[in-house]
């Protein structure tokens, strides 16, 4: 699947040639990195598909140290400081609901038949900061179709690992989140070619703080939709209740599409700080509808009032 951006974006938004060449070299290293994922199993060669937007790719050190992963604490550096406690092997995934192939699977058995592709996506957090991240991922559709969902499956629900022993945020008495963390997509959103299950970043296996061993990436939605460290996949007929919607239904909806026109009670969504920002150059830029992917995904929501279905 090769997705190329139409040339109607300003040239500074397009990845420069030197970046592109640099990337080729790290993609070469990616095959080795991803092989680690499957505990030594070769996963084949790496595809080159990707939507290239946003110009500069955010440095790896920032992508792996500025994270929201409340299972490890609410500070941005808490995940990179604490996530080493997490064991990701073995990793079991429970698949249930409206599908033919359900039950307990080994993560490696699921992904061994797929070849991760590089996808450079913008990543927009609901807190009004953003990054550009080179993920390695498998089209979500390929993975979900592997479980043969039935015609009853209209939505898919994902659940993060619940393991307080290794996740200090889940042990806290002062958390308002009813662990484990849950997210969901409509099946047509999940089947959209931009949706991936990321298994790596920067040509290497996903670090724990980024949601190892695999996580969702849905680039036209706020980051909290892109649930990390997934252990459950459930196909459902009804719209799942995602965690943030349960905590604060006035602030977070099910869709959470990036939308500069609908502000959040805590943050204006009209613009964003593209990280790294510095004290004297915030690198603030306007936020685009659907995070710049409107052309590809807006049709999924035709006829819907997006100020109500936020």
């Amino acid at each position: 699947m090769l997705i190329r951006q139409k040339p109607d974006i300003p040239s500074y938004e397009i990845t420069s040639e030197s970046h592109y060449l640099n990337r080729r070299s790290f993609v070469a290293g990616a095959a080795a990195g991803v092989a680690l994922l499957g505990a030594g199993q070769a996963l084949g060669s790496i595809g080159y598909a990707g939507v290239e937007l946003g110009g500069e790719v955010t440095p790896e050190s920032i992508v792996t140290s500025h994270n929201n992963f409340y299972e490890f604490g609410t500070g941005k550096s808490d995940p990179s400081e604490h996530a080493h406690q997490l064991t990701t092997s073995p990793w079991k995934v429970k698949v249930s609901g409206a599908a033919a192939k359900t039950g307990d699977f080994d993560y490696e058995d699921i992904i061994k038949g797929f070849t991760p592709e590089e996808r450079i996506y913008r990543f927009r957090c609901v807190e009004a900061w953003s990054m550009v991240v080179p993920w390695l991922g498998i089209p979500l559709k390929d993975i979900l179709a592997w479980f043969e969902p039935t015609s009853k499956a209209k939505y898919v629900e994902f659940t993060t690992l619940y393991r307080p022993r290794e996740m200090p945020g889940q042990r806290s008495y002062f958390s308002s989140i009813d662990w484990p963390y849950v997210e969901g997509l409509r099946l047509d959103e999940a089947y959209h070619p931009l949706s991936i299950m990321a298994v790596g970043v920067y040509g290497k296996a996903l670090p724990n703080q980024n949601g190892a061993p695999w996580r969702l990436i849905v680039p036209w939605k706020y980051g909290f939709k892109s649930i990390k460290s997934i252990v459950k996949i459930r196909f459902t007929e009804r719209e799942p209740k995602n965690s943030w919607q349960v905590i604060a239904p006035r602030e977070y909806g099910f869709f959470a599409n990036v939308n500069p026109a609908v502000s959040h009670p805590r943050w204006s969504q009209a613009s964003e700080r593209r990280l790294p920002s510095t004290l004297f150059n915030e690198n603030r830029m306007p936020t685009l509808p659907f995070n710049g992917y409107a052309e590809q995904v807006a049709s999924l929501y035709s006829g819907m009032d997006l100020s109500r279905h936020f």
Partner: protein
Amino acid sequence: MRLCIQAWTFPAIFDSAFISSAAFDRAAKPVLFVLLSLPLGWLAFAILGELNAPGSRLGADPAVEVVRFLGEWSIRLLLLTLSVSSVRRIARFPKVLQLRRMIGLFAFSYVVCHFTAYLGFLAGFDLVLIEEDLVERTYITVGFTGLLLLIPLAVTSTNGWRRRLGTTWRKLHRAIYLIVPLGLVHLLWLTKDQYGEVVLYSLIFVVLMLERVVNRRKAR
């Protein structure tokens, strides 16, 4: 913070000869000044580091980091200001009252810096954004109200104003009993998860208020 209060409220140390000596009178304010400046000093050090090597001390999103750091110290120093009169009563340590104005003015300074850091670093002096925030982000409206209410207290903190206002001065400065809860609500509303900090600060506030109630009852 908790340790601080414990140490302060431990009466024995206040009986020592040092406390009643002239040396204490001379040293207390300068020492306190330095102590209360330390967080600002650290921040200045971090910002200088950022100028040389962005991301070195304040991470990839330094504006939020600076705003949060100053907000944190704002609420701590406001609570410290409130605790002075309780410490005086519990520890029978009347001299501590001489230090209250400095603590209060430091609290005010941190709030002003917090606001300025928001205006400059986070909002980039973008007036449209700032206006929208002040009106639509209720946690910011509440914080801003707190800041506005602090201004008359800071202005009237001098001896001259205190004399001129007489009994009105005490009434005016009771606004602090509104300002601190506003700061706590501001913090509550911007917290997304892990409410431990809000709970701790609110508990300190409640304890300080209870002490006042108990003290009044006793006085009657």
